[in-house]
């Protein structure tokens, strides 16, 4: 569904991605793992069109995305779920969700989808008139995922859904992501929480210094001694540090 | 003889840039220094030269020609004094005319007093000009000491004494307000019913108007520059202050933007001046027509009329002068001839008379101001003469 071929990208003269190759097959859950500053977020921005590519190409459903504006990519069904802190705190839960359906013309179907999101996340229905700034961390994460679903995605890209959440809440979020995948939405999860992400996903990529360092079946990666030793340990430390914040 | 003289004069003029003769011959030399920066100033300076030329063409002064020199002082006192010195001492004029700005005229008074040259003032209203005690000074326009009094007299006698004051912060309006207040107190013993000192370019008078409305005053003095005055007038009607409360304008009320911007709100506003374009006398009508055709000015104000009257008074005085050929004697003779001008009736708001004593009572020639009211506002505004008020000669003197 998503094909990333030799992508180079960055900001101004600073090149961060130096030839990334990735594939996300239709209907699966793929995870992109890496620590801070490895290029994960830059890759997401490049795919969703917030920054231009320096080299390479991105194909979605076989369509080249270069030159397309973010909202045009979104109309194709390629939807990025922002980080939880990027909900609009001064808008109500419902306004945030409605905003997710901004590009859609089918109002009636969007209303049905709103109901579906509320069924998915009953807590959002309870809080629909509340400003999203008043929600808990887990609730905001549900909100941004729900907002992504409102765009009627073929593929959802999630940017660190576990960030700054308690382990119990992370589990809840990830099970919800799994439920979404079962409805036929292709998922790309960008994560630092390597262990949880590899349990969720079928396939994983590990990025470091702007290149894919390792890739493979999630089951194999999780038991790979190299990952365990050089990467997994550190990242667990990272995520627990994040938890303490 | 005359041709020779002219040639001689030309030679001298080539050297010093002015016309001059060694001794009295046929020409009467007149020097004029005025502010000629505005279009208006240019036009009335030109008008004086044209009128003098007219006198010469119709036979001159008992056969003698007037040689006039017009200089620009830009309303700056240093330039005005330099002009006066040049004309008095180098050009040796018989008579000096100037200036149109009080700040320039005041120091020139000392120059002419010292040199013994008669000086005619065309358009300076500062009352101190004639209070210096010079025997050589004659003022054609209405002195500033009369203005506030004319307004106050008319208002107190015809409108009432309960007056609200709106005084903007520009110099002219501050003075107009102070004069009016002083005269109302002196004449009728009243203080302002309300007084608001507003900013020079105030835009919102509504609170003041509301307050004035609740006070049931007889009149409102609006002392401000033209645009500010217009806004205040409009807002006074918006506030619901009726037409029965008269609006009194300060000296800026004669400016065309007032009726133009204020529109209907200008109707009924009146102010004091020394000449009214609405003057119905044939001489005034002719004058308006002349100014319009020759200089393209729609409605001449008192700057114009006074410049014109001055030339006529000069003509009368010169015709009554016995020239002897001695410059000092001739200057004295001209001075005495001007002092003998009695009851001159020209364009001015009232008769102009001088007398021999070196006092303001004798030398402020015009003691009659005219009150002008707008009868129609807008682009094609119209005015009427409400009253002429003549003051006692020593009015306003301390």
């Amino acid at each position, binding site marked *: 569904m998503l094909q990333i071929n030799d992508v180079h990208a960055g900001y101004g003269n600073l090149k961060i991605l130096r030839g990334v190759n990735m594939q996300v097959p239709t209907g699966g859950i793929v995870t992109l793992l890496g620590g801070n500053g490895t290029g994960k977020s830059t890759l997401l921005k490049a795919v*969703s*069109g*917030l920054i231009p590519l320096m080299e390479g190409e991105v194909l979605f459903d076989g369509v080249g995305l270069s030159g397309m*504006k*973010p*909202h045009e990519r*979104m*109309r194709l069904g390629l*939807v*990025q779920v*922002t980080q939880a802190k*990027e909900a*609009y*705190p*001064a*808008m109500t839960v419902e*306004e945030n969700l*409605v*905003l*997710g359906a*901004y*590009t859609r013309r089918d109002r009636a179907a969007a209303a049905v989808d709103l109901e579906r999101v509320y069924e998915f996340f009953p807590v959002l229905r309870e809080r629909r008139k509340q400003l999203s*700034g008043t929600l808990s961390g887990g609730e905001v994460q549900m909100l941004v995922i729900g*907002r992504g679903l409102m*765009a009627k995605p073929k593929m959802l890209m999630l940017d660190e859904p576990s960030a700054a959440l308690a382990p119990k809440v992370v589990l809840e979020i990830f099970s919800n992501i799994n439920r979404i995948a079962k409805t036929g939405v292709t998922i790309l999860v960008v994560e630092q929480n390597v262990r949880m992400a590899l349990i969720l996903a079928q396939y994983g990529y590990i990025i470091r210094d702007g290149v894919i360092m390792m890739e493979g079946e999630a089951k194999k990666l999780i038991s790979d001694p190299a990952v365990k030793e050089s990467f997994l340990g550190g990242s667990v430390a990272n995520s627990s540090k994040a938890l303490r914040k | 003889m005359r041709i020779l003289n002219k040639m001689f004069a030309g030679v001298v003029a080539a050297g010093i840039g002015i016309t001059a003769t060694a001794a009295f011959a046929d020409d009467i030399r007149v020097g004029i220094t005025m502010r000629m920066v505005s279009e208006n100033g240019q036009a009335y300076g030109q008008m004086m030269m044209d009128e003098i030329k007219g006198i010469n063409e119709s036979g001159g002064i008992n056969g003698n020609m007037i040689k006039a020199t017009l200089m620009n002082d830009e309303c700056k006192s240093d330039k005005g004094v330099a002009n006066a010195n040049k004309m008095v001492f180098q050009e040796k004029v018989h008579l000096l005319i100037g200036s149109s700005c009080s700040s320039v005229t005041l120091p020139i008074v000392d120059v002419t007093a010292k040199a013994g040259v008669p000086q005619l003032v065309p358009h300076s209203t500062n009352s101190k000009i004639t209070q210096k005690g010079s025997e050589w000074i004659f003022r054609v326009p209405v002195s500033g000491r009369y203005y506030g009094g004319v307004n106050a007299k008319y208002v107190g006698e015809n409108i009432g004494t309960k007056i609200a004051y709106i005084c903007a*912060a520009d110099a002219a309006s501050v003075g107009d307000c102070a004069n009016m207040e002083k005269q109302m107190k002196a004449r009728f013993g009243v203080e302002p019913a309300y007084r*608001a*000192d*507003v*900013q020079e370019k*105030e*835009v*919102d008078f*509504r*609170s*003041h108007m*509301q*307050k004035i409305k*609740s006070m049931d005053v007889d009149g409102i003095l609006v002392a401000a520059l033209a*645009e500010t005055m*217009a*806004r205040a007038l*409009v*807002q006074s009607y*918006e*506030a*619901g202050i009726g037409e029965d409360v008269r609006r009194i304008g300060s000296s800026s009320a004669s400016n065309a*933007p007032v009726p*133009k*911007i*204020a*529109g209907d709100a200008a109707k009924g506003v009146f102010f004091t001046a020394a000449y009214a374009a609405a003057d119905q006398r044939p001489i005034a009508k002719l004058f308006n027509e002349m100014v319009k055709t020759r200089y393209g000015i729609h409605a001449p104000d008192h700057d114009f009329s006074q410049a014109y009257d001055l030339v006529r008074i000069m003509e009368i005085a010169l015709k009554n002068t016995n020239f002897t050929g001695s410059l000092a004697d001739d200057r004295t003779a001209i001075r005495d001839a001007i002092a003998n001008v009695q009851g001159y009736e020209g364009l001015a708001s009232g008769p102009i008379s001088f007398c021999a004593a070196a006092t303001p009572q004798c030398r402020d020639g015009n003691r009659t101001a005219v009150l002008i009211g707008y009868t129609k506002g807008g682009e094609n505004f119209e005015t009427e003469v409400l009253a002429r008020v003549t003051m006692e000669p020593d009015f306003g003197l301390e």
Partner: protein
Amino acid sequence: MGFDYNSLLAFIIFGVTIGVVYGIVALGISLIYSGLDIVHFAHGEMYMFGAFFGLVLAHNVGVPYPIALIGAMVLTALLGMAVERVFYRRLTRAGGGYTVAGMGMIICGFGMSVALVNVAYFIWGAEAEPFRANLDYIPRLSFPGDIEVPESYVLTAIISVALMAALHYFLRHTKTGLAVRAVAHNKDIAYLMGINVPLMISLIFGLACGLGAAAGVLIGPMQSVQVEMGYLMLMKAFAAAVVGGFGSLPGAIIGGIMVGVFENLGAAYISASHKDIYAFLLLILVLMFKPSGLLGVDAKVKA
């Protein structure tokens, strides 16, 4: 002599009626600031152009006053959008994305202000023009104590409040309004929501300039129209925006009314000859005790 409560009431009422006009100009400044992070120094000129457009429509074209008002708003909105698109956007782009705070933008705003004043000089000349509007069909309002509020002030207050209500409805209850708020909050996320951000920025500019124009047309019949009228209004509206909290829309309105009332009371009870100072006195007082303004947007939330 007892205290005159009727006068006090009158000063407050007139303060409010002029204050709402400051408020709608401040609303535009706040809208642009929250949407584009630009402090728009040429906004006073939008107000001035609005007044002239209204004047031309009402006097030269001869349309009724309400239509002149709407027409002036539309024309000024288009002018504002053109100015943003042609001049400001280059600068904002150079700053990365659609936001740039900094010297370049401030100087550009001042420059635009001077340029627009000169364009207006060229077209309409320096003389003040009377703006006559027939408002007799609007009733006068009477308050206790024989305070009558004239038609034009009633109209000003009603239209200002209506515009604020319309803007509120637009921002809170329409999809486009939601998108405008999203863009104002964070342009990158707005992009990810599929919002056409450049279009929304044009819309924000158009709305803000349209509001300024409305203020110009409303003030015109009271104060006459002149090319240099924008400067003072800009200062007052700025004071209003800062007092209310820069970037806060309800704050802009409250700030406007506060400035209007405060300067009227100052003129009445302290001295009328320095009326323009009171707006800034209020500004200093508010900044001393609440630097973010009364309803100031928390900087962290904005970022």
